[in-house]
């Protein structure tokens, strides 16, 4: 009796394992079958993702998500996430992709995979159009504003020539005020801040002069999804070559893609 029981238990467990193995379908297959792709986007980080005045999500990442869904020929289900839960949502398969101004670092690379970059996220020196600066050396005898303690401020302190004057303000708002009011013509800040300046103050936009540090945005997906990765990278490459990525950058970040993107 016990031998039959043991054999039955063994047979059932093998069958179960076998069934679960068969159910391990490729993500891309299940997306194409269900005609829906679930994509996580930010809801609290303009201009990548935030609630518009009609409380619908809008931003660069939402546009990117819709672009990928369109190219795949499926419907996009937009799932709003935060910086803290976006990777867990991906790992627990609540979403298929994470498009949330996601940066690549070694800790994250252990648990998820990254596509090629689709949007720039960088710090640089920005300024008014008629100031001729293309590299750090051009900052000689010029005044640059920066937020004290920020990564751009520390980098520009190292990069700027000794004759340059760096004005350090206590927070991003003061740095922005200094630029907008005309107290400084150049600021060292992140491209998101510069985009916010150009959007809210179109009379005096902040154009990129040169890059300090680059940490672009990638699409995140689960490991071992080669088909999905290949498709997403192909879509990104196509969008780059036909100018769609540049259009997104111009629309939301008020600056074209930086050279060499």
């Amino acid at each position, binding site marked *: 009796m016990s031998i039959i029981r043991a054999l039955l238990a063994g047979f059932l467990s093998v069958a179960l394992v076998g069934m679960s193995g068969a159910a391990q379908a490729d993500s891309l297959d299940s997306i194409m079958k269900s005609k829906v792709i679930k994509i996580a986007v930010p809801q609290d980080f303009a201009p990548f993702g935030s609630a518009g005045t009609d409380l619908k999500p809008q931003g660069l990442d939402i546009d990117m998500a819709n672009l990928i869904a369109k190219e795949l020929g499926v419907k996009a289900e937009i799932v709003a996430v935060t910086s803290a839960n976006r990777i867990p949502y991906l790992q627990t398969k609540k979403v298929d992709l994470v498009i949330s101004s996601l940066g690549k670092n070694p800790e994250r690379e252990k648990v998820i995979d990254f596509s090629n970059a689709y949007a720039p996220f960088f710090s640089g020196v920005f300024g008014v159009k008629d100031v001729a600066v293309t590299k750090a050396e051009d900052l000689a005898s010029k005044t640059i504003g920066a937020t*004290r303690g920020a990564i751009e401020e520390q980098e520009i302190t190292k990069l700027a020539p000794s004759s340059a004057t760096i*004005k*350090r*303000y206590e927070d991003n708002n*003061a740095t922005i005020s200094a630029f907008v*009011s005309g107290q400084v013509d150049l600021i060292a800040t992140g491209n998101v801040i510069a985009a916010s300046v150009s959007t809210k103050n179109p009379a005096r936009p902040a154009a990129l002069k040169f890059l300090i540090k680059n940490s672009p945005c990638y699409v995140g997906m689960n490991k071992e999804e080669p088909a999905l990765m290949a498709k997403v990278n192909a879509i990104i490459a196509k969008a780059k070559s036909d100018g769609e990525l540049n259009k997104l950058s111009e629309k939301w970040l008020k600056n074209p893609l930086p050279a060499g993107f």
Partner: protein
Amino acid sequence: MTYHLQFGSLLPYWEVLAWGIVFTVVLTLVSTVVGIAVGTAGASARTFGPAWLGAAVRVYVELIRNTPFIVQLFFIFFGLPALGLRLSETTAAFLAMVINLGAYSTEIIRAGIEAVPKGHIEAGVSLAMSRFEVLRYIVLRQAIAKIYPALSSQIIIVMLGSAVVSQISAQDLTYAANFIQSRNFRAFEVYLVSALIYLLLAIGTRALLRVIGQRFFTVT
């Protein structure tokens, strides 16, 4: 949880700190002298001047005394450029402090002037002194002698309030402290040291003001 004090981490930045102290001292010195002058002029205008001038001074005083100093400073530095007046942060800091001290000292000195007995003024006039001579030799010396403690306190308040100019990137002592803290991350040591320096500056300023008061503004 033990915290290991590391005051040595400030040593590499002694120059930044030194220049910050110099800036604060010079800023306070110059804006005190000009601010008291503005206050004296305002108080005299309000008590002895024509009605329209007195009204204008009153508006100025009420405006400045009822708004925060940092708001006044930000208005001068960030707001005025919109009207075409772009000032450097040092000029803006100096201007804001003069305007601020001017308003408060106007009221303080006016209290002193009104406390001078009318008989003294009449005595001066009867001796054929001009109104200006009466003001200068009889009224002001007594007035300032009477309110000297209040005036000293206001000067110290403005000196300590000058810490706010670090917000517009004027390189005073607080700016130096913030800068050092953003490099060595030792907020406890940095702000303890800068607080002590402000304390020493305040004690020193009060001692200096006492000496000046005894020399020039003692009425026996």
